[in-house]
């Protein structure tokens, strides 16, 4: 299912603009896709990134800006649609292809490295403690059976 266009308020929108936020959301939900548990974005990864990009992840903002643009360019090159307009299988295939052959667009670092960095950040927003802004309602902990006592 394609990611519907959405206009979140706040830092992400001012950093990335609406198309950039759509691409970011599509990326997060490709890295941590929905199954019978929600995808990464609905589990709070977007909230984690929103907070992180104005704090500990601020140094990564230029990288994300350039790489999300490159991701859109790659998508248009393949499908004539933006990355966010692709369905999950197409987005997954595109990322796998970029990991393998490096892509045709202009990337500031090899796409495989960017995907690895973004996957780490997504995992932080998904699996770390909710006080960091992500892991909404401890949903990933419920999913894997991490039950906190005390």
């Amino acid at each position, binding site marked *: 299912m394609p990611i519907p266009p959405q206009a979140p308020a706040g830092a992400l929108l001012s950093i990335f603009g609406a198309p950039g936020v759509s691409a970011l959301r599509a990326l997060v939900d490709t*890295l*941590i896709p929905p199954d019978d548990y929600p995808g990464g974005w609905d589990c709070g990864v977007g909230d984690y990134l929103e907070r992180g990009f104005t704090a*500990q992840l601020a140094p990564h903002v230029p990288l994300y800006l350039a790489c999300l643009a490159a991701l859109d360019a790659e998508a248009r090159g393949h499908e004539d649609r933006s990355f966010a307009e692709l369905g999950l299988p197409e987005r997954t295939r595109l990322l796998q292809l970029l990991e393998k052959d490096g892509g045709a667009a202009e990337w500031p670092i090899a796409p495989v490295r960017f995907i690895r960095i973004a996957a780490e950040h997504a*995992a932080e927003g998904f699996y*770390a403690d909710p006080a*960091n802004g992500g892991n909404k309602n401890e949903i990933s902990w419920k*999913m894997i059976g991490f039950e*906190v006592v005390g």
Partner: protein
Amino acid sequence: MKHYDVVIVGAGAGGGIAAGVLANAGKSVLLLERGRPLSFEDVGRDHLRSMRFSRYGVNAGPDLDGVPRVFVEQDGATRIVGPLDGGYHNLAACVGSGTRVYGGQAWRFMPQDFRMASIYGTPAGSSLADWPITYDDLAPFYERVEWEVGVSADCARMSHLPEYHRQYPMEPLPMTRRANRFEQAAQGLNWRTTRVPLLINSKPYGGKPACIHCQHCVGYACPVDAKNGTQSTVIPRAIASGRCTLVTGAMTEKINVDASGRASGVTFHDRDGVRQEVGADVVVAAGGAIETARLLLNSASSREPLGLGNANGQVGRSLQGHYYAGCVGLFEDDIWDGVGPGACIGTCEFNHGNDGIIGGGLLADDFIATPISAWNGMLPPDLPRWGLEAKQWMRKNYRRVADIRGPVHEIPSPECRVTVDTGVRDRFGIPAAKLSGFAHEETVRTANFMDARAREWLLAAGAVDVWGGGHGRYLSGGQHQAGTCRMGDDPHTSVVDASCRVHGHDNVYLADGSVHVTNGGFNPVLTIMALAWRTAEGIAAAW
């Protein structure tokens, strides 16, 4: 200038013990700590900023800015590093230091650990040596720490050690599901096992409650204060005596000595950045192996221009820590039952007596890994790091993975060093520590041998897949840092004597892992505490 009987630099495992013993012996003590006291809320439960997973900060210090070190790569290139960089080899900076957030594994070293060179010889390129003291010298002090600080364990299971004179004060913490599985598997392999001794209360003890078996032990502060660090035991008792003054936010710049080499006190920078000098009859340095070496090197005088106690160039050498051997196993069912703290069962079958191997190490199950730590360190190497497969693997297997790990007895190298770089200074203008060298090849061989034993144990316990292990050569000196100011009878090959007094200095002592000649195949904190106890009693008895 204020004057104290004793100034102690560093309120960690060793400094805290020394403060307690000396204050109770009637001495006036000034305990200087560069960090600050941390409440449970201060330490917090931030999974991205713990001592176990320091991605964006460290919950027990130090601050990230103004405390640089220099790290020398294997090709000789240097870079300036901060506490989040692995090359920094960080140790907590707070009252209690690492004992504020440790898991508290309370192992005694084995008698053989004090006689490594006699048993194994000295491999080329190594600085392997015997300690100037034996297990028997330290055993009474191990016992004191076990009772005064508080350890839960079962001495009947310590079959790798000489007979104890006194049982532990508390029974071990309960067995977990996976520990039962590992114990049975070890029986099948004909390996003896032992319960992991822990500085954690299994029943109310020392005025503090019992463990509630939560999931945030190592890397975090205890929510009910069942964990026994120096900050919650000996330091408060020292202060309660009325004879110990704890000053936090105090970074010590140098130990001051007179022309005869006798220490007159220390110079430190207080929390407001004001440079202060205090006088003392005795100075005890206990900043950890890296910071203690740095302090001695920065305490150069006209008598010893290369640093206090460094006339023979020994200060800073043989920095060692622990390689961690081990593997991760995947099981068909939930092997983790959620009962903390997790470290429960160990074997000392391979600490010594391994054919063709120098030393060996302990293997044990590990503390509970937070989900992000498991994601970061326990996934199979061929699993994609993103996509449905990664998500569903975590969902299916987080409770089905377990690791067997343990510290490997390192073969020290004189080229693993702490020096100071006068071109790089901390926020107070004090020259930074510079870390260089990489482990002796025999350490790597031992680690690989121990990986194979971990694999064997996991498979015997029913693991359907095992991964991990494999070691390169690197500098090892993080949370278990030791060496740099080793004990010995010969001033040409050591920095302190058998009483942990710096050669050539009547009244300067060290009370941390820096004095360890070798670092055992065990978590070293109980040895640091026991040795500090012995050193402090020695100081008090002689004066």
